């Protein structure tokens, strides 16, 4: 078996910080330092074998202090999940749930039920670090997915190819990779039998497999003949010779921006083929040198938001995160289409302004200066101290020396030669501005 390379360099603050961003939602205050002390093996193990969930931080609230109603209130589904990301003690589980949400991208715009979307979310979390085989069986039978990709409209007298096609194209094999249009049609037949009952006021309920509705005839899939069942449809895909490569490359792409080298890929495929378990593959990816020495990745908007909140020690206390997140291009439970979010296109001029607004709102509770007639703490007229203090306020992120220099130059120029009322008024303005600039810097938008 080809050995998969493991990172051998120093595992310090910067490496621990990157691991926490890639495999979670960034460090809480002091978390990068404590993770670094565990070393690479211990750090990765703490993520792949997390303790039971222990929520850290205040309960989520909307801006009026009310508890969230994720199944009912508009936008609270999004807030509910953001809160989990902020407060979780099992960040990799939560991050993998997000990966599966993108992998099996289902949108409430087509499902029309927050309750069903939340049920799917629980399913994804339950399988987060488990077996892909079992996850795929479960998601195939998931009501939200059955609605989203027309599973309950797939009848033996009029097959609907929607799910059968995506099962191969997006979930297991890749477009045109080892299957034909005939396989699409035959898989659609194989997947027949799902139905639901429509109840006034409730919509579709009582999702079930009814053997009477299933096409029991012979099918030919990937050149094999059989009276295949819906579970066979899934098994055939997972056992397809092209699947392991597709799986490994796709999973890898969520954690490392450049594709794996041939040796790594082959090694990961061997690991995965043993029993389709996700965790051993994840473990190898998170210990791979490419994660620590390779290029940076743009943080997805929800990771950017939750990371800022974790660094600031702030919980969910406003529903503004719903539209702010949407404005930066990522509304949870509403991916743009069945292919998920496009990671190569997180940033445009409007999304940058969206992230500016996110940073501005994230920082609102720690804005310096006079507020409501109260004098804030005095900020010294000292550019160096102002930049250091901004880094502290945001949880001490690692930034490039050049970025530090730009912030320092800004602070110096802004405070240069100010006298009179400005000498007292300007330092807090400059401090607020430095924090804002730091939060939107390319350093903090990437990890």
């Amino acid at each position, binding site marked *: 078996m080809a050995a998969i390379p493991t990172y051998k360099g120093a595992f310090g603050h910067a490496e621990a910080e990157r691991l926490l961003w890639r495999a979670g939602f960034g460090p809480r205050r002091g978390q990068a330092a404590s993770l670094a002390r565990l070393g690479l093996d211990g750090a990765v193990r703490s993520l792949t074998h997390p303790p039971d969930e222990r929520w850290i931080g205040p309960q989520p609230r909307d801006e009026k202090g009310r508890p969230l109603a994720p199944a009912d209130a*508009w936008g609270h589904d999004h807030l509910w999940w953001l809160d989990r990301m902020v407060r979780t003690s099992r960040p990799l589980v939560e991050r993998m749930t997000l990966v599966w949400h993108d992998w099996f991208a289902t949108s*409430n*715009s*087509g*499902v*029309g*039920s927050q309750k069903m979307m939340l049920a799917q979310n629980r399913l994804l979390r339950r399988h987060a670090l488990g077996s892909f085989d079992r996850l795929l069986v479960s998601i195939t039978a998931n009501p939200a997915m059955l609605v989203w990709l027309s599973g309950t409209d797939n009848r033996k007298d009029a097959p609907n190819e929607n799910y059968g096609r995506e099962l191969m194209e997006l979930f297991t094999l890749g477009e045109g990779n080892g299957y034909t249009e005939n396989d699409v049609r035959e898989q659609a037949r194989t997947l027949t039998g799902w139905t639901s009952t429509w109840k006034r006021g409730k919509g579709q309920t009582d999702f079930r497999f009814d053997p009477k509705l299933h096409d029991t005839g012979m099918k030919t899939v990937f050149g094999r003949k059989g009276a295949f069942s819906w579970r066979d449809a899934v098994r055939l895909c997972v056992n397809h010779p092209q699947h392991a490569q597709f799986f490994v490359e796709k999973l890898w792409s969520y954690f490392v*921006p450049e594709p794996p080298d041939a040796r790594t890929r082959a090694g990961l495929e061997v690991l995965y083929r043993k029993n389709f378990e996700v965790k051993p593959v994840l473990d190898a990816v998170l210990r791979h040198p490419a994660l620590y020495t390779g*290029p*940076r*990745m*743009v943080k997805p908007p929800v990771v950017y938001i939750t990371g800022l909140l974790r660094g600031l020690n702030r919980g969910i206390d406003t529903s*503004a995160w*719903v*539209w*702010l997140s*949407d*404005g930066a*291009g990522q509304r949870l439970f509403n991916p743009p*289409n*069945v*292919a998920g979010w*496009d990671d190569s296109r*997180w*940033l*445009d*001029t*409007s*999304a*940058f*302004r*969206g992230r*500016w*607004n996110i940073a*501005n709102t994230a920082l609102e509770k720690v*804005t*310096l*200066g006079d507020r409501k007639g109260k004098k804030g703490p005095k900020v010294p007229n000292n550019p160096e101290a102002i930049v250091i203090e901004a880094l502290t306020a945001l949880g001490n992120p690692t930034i*490039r020396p050049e*970025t530090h220099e*730009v*912030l320092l*130059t*800004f602070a110096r*120029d*802004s405070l240069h030669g100010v006298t009179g*009322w400005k000498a007292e*008024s*300007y330092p807090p*303005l*400059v401090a*607020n*501005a430095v924090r*804002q*600039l730091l939060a*939107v*810097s*390319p350093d903090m*938008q*990437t990890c």
Partner: protein
Amino acid sequence: MACCNEHSRSEIVRRGLAEAGRGLPAIEPGMPLPAGTGLDRRTFVARGVGLALAVYGGAALRPRAFDDGIAAAAAASPQQKVFVSIFLDGGADSLSLLAPTGDSLYPQFRPRLALAAGAGPAFTEDPRLTWHPSLSPLAQLHGEGKVNVIPGIGYDHPNQSHFTSRHFWEVGAADERLATGWLGRYLDRVGRPDNPLQGLSLDWSLQPSLATANMPVAAVDAPDRYDFWARGVWGEVSNRMVGTIAKLGALPTNGDPGLRAASEAAAQSARLYEQLAPFRPKDDRKSLVSPVAYPGGDDRFPRRLAGLAAMLAAGLPLRVVALSAAGRYDTHDNQAQGLSDDLKLTADSLLAFQRDLEARGLADRVLVHVWTEFGRRAKENGSGGTDHGAAGTGFLIGSQVSGQMIGEFPGLAKLDDHGNLRATSDFRGLYGSILEDWLGTDAAAIIPRARKFARPKILR
């Protein structure tokens, strides 16, 4: 229905976004005015943008630069044709936009919603059809030969999902996975790496038709609102803060693609901020002054069109622009009144825009295309509305259009299996004509299988 609630919800989101970052913090009592917000800001803007400020809005300050600026900007792209895509979101009802009052089946399909002959202007190219009264401004432009009516546009095997059908129109193909917009692919072919304004989405996020693979494009809610405000920061400190965005974006990225993406977004945003400097309100003075009156009120559509005309007049290097029309066209319930109001605001705004362009001498450079993802079911539903259908209605507007109908009204006697209007023209053929005849590029390089679709004559 869930799909339709999403429409109103996204509008709430849209409004919320639009308000983000608005408003300067209050000036503290006793603080000396102008506290940096006046002259300092102006000086900064002048330093940062020079030309652009001079071109527009800076006349009071620097009259000479005003003239120089126009000349310089015009020299850069003097006769660039501009294409404007306007989306009627939700699936506008063909049988109301141009009501088939002369089709004997019409009252049977629309017992409650049918318009009467004479309710609006007669459509001179087909005696069966009557303009919706709210579209009188378009009838007027049509009378001047400035509108091509497209009364039954769509594609084979119509998809009745808002999302999917709109996606097909955005990407210019019946392909669910195509990720670049048809206008984006055009920009990838002819655009420049240093000009985000070449593809301008007048919206809070990028209109998908403009999605490129390589070239920068811009999304702004409104040209007068592309601002970077931060709590607890004002005056000259704020100006310098915004100026520092460009410096962060200009730092070396050492070949790191993630850093480069983040840096480019910062740099392009800073560049766009500069390009749009003339359009931000200064010292309580309105930044946009139009030679004609646009409809008032809160809706952003007329303001965006007014801003667009001003941007074109300022010589900003725009090529393709995309935005959504006023209103929501997913009229499942109580269609009559809502549709009438939305169409009126849209058509009044479009007429004002055309007159604005004419007054500024720009009308020959601009082609507007109004489209919707599908039309609606011929038979009205039980709640005074209509459900999703197939062929829709579109318009091409401009001083250079042929003024001739494209395709024809398909009639109510031969509906498809779902009771929907059949398409008599294909959107991909229309895109081919726009690309070849207006934008002067090879349609086959932009639209998949472009040669399969007949290209209508669109220009004079």
